């Protein structure tokens, strides 16, 4: 029963990146989160998280900034405006697909 979903953003449509996008979208707009806390929230290893963050950054969905707290470098991650929009479009597309599938199932019954 495998189903390929057409019209979905392939940058977001992978479980690890989807989890990251959800986590960042829950934060109030403009807020940023440190790498370790984000790792904690999404439950991923640093290497894995880093790989997926770079893909999201390449798509300009997130911004990664480095700051200093005293002498310790801190990496912050934030959802960009484009990223928030892309995530909204992605969930809207999913809902449309779901509605279409339900509609089809309903038609078949009739």
């Amino acid at each position: 029963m495998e189903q390929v979903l057409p019209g979905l953003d392939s940058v977001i449509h992978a479980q690890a990146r989807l989890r990251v996008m959800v986590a960042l979208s829950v934060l109030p707009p403009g807020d940023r989160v440190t790498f370790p806390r984000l790792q904690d929230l999404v439950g991923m290893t640093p290497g894995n998280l880093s790989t997926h963050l770079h893909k999201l950054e390449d798509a300009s969905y997130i911004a990664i900034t480095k700051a200093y707290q005293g002498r310790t470098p801190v990496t912050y991650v934030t959802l960009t405006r484009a990223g928030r929009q892309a995530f909204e479009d992605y969930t809207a597309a999913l809902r449309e697909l779901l509605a279409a599938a339900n509609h089809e199932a309903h038609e078949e019954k009739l």
Partner: protein
Amino acid sequence: MHNGHPPDPPVGTTDPALASPGQTLALIKAQRRVIARNLYVDPALILGAWGLAWLVGGGAGYLAAHGWLATGVPIWLAGIISGVLFAAATLVSFGEPARRGRGVAGPSRRVQAVYGWSWPLAFAGVLALNLALDQQGLPAHLAPLLWTGTSLLAVGLLYLAGGMLWDSRLQYGLGLWVLVTGAAGVAAGYPGNFAVLSLAGGGGFLVAAAVARARHWQSERAA
């Protein structure tokens, strides 16, 4: 990948969790709930801690002042009980947002920090004002009324501010209630002011805590 990670599976084919729109939406919903729970600053915890501190602290003050339990609750013990409970509530009030907001920075955290600092600043003002009045010969019998009255005024105004900042009718309503409680306490006179502080003040906070908890449960079930 350059650091040895396997490439991603093709869209929607090998990850069973993302196989259908329904499953993907369910995953998003579940993940959103986990994250929201992790970041949620529990107002019921903070309001409950203050409710308890006021109820017990104010009650002990009243009993000690009234001499009902002259053998059981000396005034110094009432002072210690209140001090410990107020210190604990302060710790909870600053600790809970700090713990939940760990590693988060940005506009919402700045608002939280500025609001947090408003409390010690407001109480420094109350302290300065009351000590100055004391220096200038405030009659001793008015001192407890001045302290509870001005403290409640500051608390009430800060809850009004919190209600504005976070668009919270609950906080705003509690602020109003505390303002009324403060005025009523002064009107009641000493030591009735402690009873008002304990029952109306502490009770008000506990009711607000219960409302906050009930609302949160409701919204979690609806989410």
